[in-house]
């Protein structure tokens, strides 16, 4: 399932949909023991990733994977379980401080009876539903789950929360209120149209200013998918790539907890940085780099040996040079490092690094090797870790 999605991210013409789906995959973080449920959740997310947020929220909230993960199966009239209601407000829509403990209790009552059947289909169990009046975020009525989501989405905090999180994913880890406020207003006016929001974000002048470049540390998935996509890499054994991705701390469908993956600098420590910087050498030069993964103690494979958990490179990727040569046109060799840097890096190539890249290129004996060395050294710069 992971390899299939990674392939899509690396090759699909609908690149934006996959990237936004990756964002929602972290936003609506969920782990299940049932791969079919996880896949159903992902497909719902991919389908609605660029639509109206309330539709996405409702669909995700009614996915068996999410109901199971957040214990709404146990949320019954006599014994309400608040987990689902709380996470919907805290992590999916409003953020802390924008609701009260009483709102959590009342919303939990509204969600009673939301369940799924043995075939993993959403079911409303009327007998478990608390049909009495509730007061949620200042409104009173005999609310059900759909009403609760509608009322939550009427809060101004919802737009700010979602826009800020998307901004931190796509633009800059440090949110700028001057950029966010107009987007929030437009997002509400459009009835939370995600596609429209992203278009505004990507067409804003500030999106292309140098200050917005190279401000986000790529997640392992973005890094690996980006390498594959940009260079049109051919991969024979993508399981091995998944192993390196896991060593870097991100396995799709396995977020660390309900809050999703912590991002930015949290991806970086000494060992993960060394692996990141050597990943191009591993992929293009078959450089030796064995990593023993931690035992993740799942119940599907309770005991694995250290050997089984070791990832090694085994010459399974191929780098086609023709498209890059085409991209360069007939540019003279001495200009190639700078041209490729403009194409591959968001941060400017500094003179010391240009010199390093040129030195690596000069060691080559053929034009192909020269191009390969140039690419390899550019992609091994810390600058390539940034988007």
């Amino acid at each position, binding site marked *: 399932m992971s390899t299939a999605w990674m392939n899509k991210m690396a090759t699909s013409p609908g690149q934006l949909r996959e990237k936004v789906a990756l964002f929602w995959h972290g936003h609506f973080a969920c782990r299940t023991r049932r791969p079919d449920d996880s896949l159903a959740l992902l497909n719902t997310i991919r389908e609605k990733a660029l639509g109206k947020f309330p539709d996405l929220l409702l669909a995700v909230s009614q996915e068996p994977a999410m109901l199971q*993960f*957040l*214990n709404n199966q146990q949320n019954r009239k006599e014994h309400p379980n*608040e*987990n689902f209601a*709380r*996470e919907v407000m805290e*992590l999916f829509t409003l953020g*802390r401080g924008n609701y009260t403990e009483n709102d959590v209790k009342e919303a939990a009552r509204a969600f009673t009876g939301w369940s799924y059947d043995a075939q993993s289909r959403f079911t409303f169990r009327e007998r478990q539903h608390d049909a009495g009046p509730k007061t949620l975020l200042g409104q009173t009525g005999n609310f059900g789950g759909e009403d609760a989501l509608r009322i939550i989405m009427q809060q101004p905090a919802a737009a700010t929360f979602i826009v800020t999180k998307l901004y931190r994913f796509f633009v800059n*880890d440090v949110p700028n209120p001057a950029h966010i406020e107009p987007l929030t207003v437009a997002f509400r006016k459009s009835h939370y149209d995600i596609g429209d929001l992203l278009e505004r974000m990507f067409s804003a002048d500030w999106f292309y200013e140098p200050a917005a470049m*190279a*401000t*986000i*540390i790529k997640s392992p998935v973005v890094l690996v998918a980006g390498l594959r996509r940009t260079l049109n890499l051919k991969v024979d054994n993508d399981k091995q790539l998944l192993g390196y991705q896991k*060593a870097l*701390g991100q396995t799709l469908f396995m977020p*660390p*907890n*309900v*809050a999703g993956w*912590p991002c*930015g*600098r*949290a991806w*970086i*420590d*000494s*060992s*993960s*940085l*060394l692996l990141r*910087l*050597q990943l191009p*050498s591993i992929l293009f030069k078959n450089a030796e*780099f*064995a*990593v*023993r*993964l*931690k*035992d*993740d*103690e*799942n*119940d599907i494979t*309770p*005991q694995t040996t*250290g050997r089984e958990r070791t990832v090694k490179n085994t010459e399974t990727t191929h780098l086609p040079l023709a498209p890059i040569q085409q991209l360069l046109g007939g540019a003279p060799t001495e200009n190639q490092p700078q041209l490729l840097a403009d194409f591959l890096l968001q*941060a400017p190539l500094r003179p*010391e*690094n240009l010199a*390093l890249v040129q030195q*690596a290129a000069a060691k080559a004996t053929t034009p192909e090797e020269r191009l390969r060395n140039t690419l390899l*050294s550019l992609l*091994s*710069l*810390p*600058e390539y*870790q*940034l988007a």
Partner: protein
Amino acid sequence: MQRRQFLQSSALASTLLLVPKFLHALDRSENQLAARLRDAPGGTAKRLIVVQLGGGNDGLNTLVPFRNDLYYKARPTLALREADGLLPVSDELALHQSMKGLKGLFDQGQLAICNAVGYPNPDRSHFRSMDIWQSGSGSEQLLSTGWLGRYLDSNCAGGAPAYQALEIDDTLSLALKGAQRNGLALKNPGKFHQLTQSRYLSRLSQEKAAAPAGSELDYLYKTLAETASSADYLYEKSKIHNSTATYPNTDFGRNLKTTAELIGSGVESRVYYLALSGFDTHVGQHGRQAQLLGELSDGLAALAADLQKSSEWNNTLVMVFSEFGRRVSQNASNGTDHGTANNVFLLSGALRRPGLLNQPASLADLDQGDLRYQLDFRSLYASILTDWLGADDKLVLGPGIEKLAGLV
């Protein structure tokens, strides 16, 4: 799963922001490095070794209540008996028969056992419960940093290098990730050093002022520089002492040996983190657990003897934990399923209170078939942080955690 709190902007996280100063990489010139090595104060500071038993070790068959009928009733075929060779440590409790090494340390007053350690509203999922133990959170909190990482944040601001906390593995656990500082993961100093030795990386790591201060790029270059200088330091330093002691010929045994060599070489790390996994014994528990506990016991006994020889055992505290214990009743496959409270072992040449530190959990008063915890694991952390590592536990764990007086 219970309720969680997203602690991104809590009081705890904000106190950590008081240490914003990013470490400068050590000067890598050979002379300076040599001087550093010469001047390093060898092994005077106390250090902590954490051993994580992954998968949920069955505490009831590790420290066995061998006079308790309820134990035998709950485990008709899985219970261990005196005739199996149990190693009694009191009238009622005995260590598993494969733990002769630890029994020896117990008899010498170098092992302390805390019973019924856990936390309120226990979570029976491996990944979540391990997350709770590694982050030092409550079961209703979500922290994205580890307790030892926050120890680095709070205690090593300004001057201390990344190798203050080492994980003997290829990748770094959450436990050693802080908001500002991280520990460092290495399988052994040679392999780690070699990774930083490509000409290209080594040139990159020496670039000065590569990016605007405070930017993400600056952070990457500084981390790289610090990684390279730490690798140099650890590699040079670790040549000083090669252990000749015999450890189990397993990955865990080799990691213990690496740890002893680093300590014996006078490396200034305060924290070492090691894991032994495979304790998830749902099926056929007997053989598997016996093998793992034997490996643990033999390994730790070898470590204790080795560190005694290099006069470092009195400065070293080992803490052994698992993310949860297992259910009191055995299952239908001669195994046990995920449970709750468990025992924690403390080992050192200088324990203030050796032996059994508290009563084992009651087998008569269970919580839906599981042991009730008596001692919050964060109390152990707090005592170790304060009394052993000399840190401020409140900066690491937040307020309101009770310490255990005179534990270490």
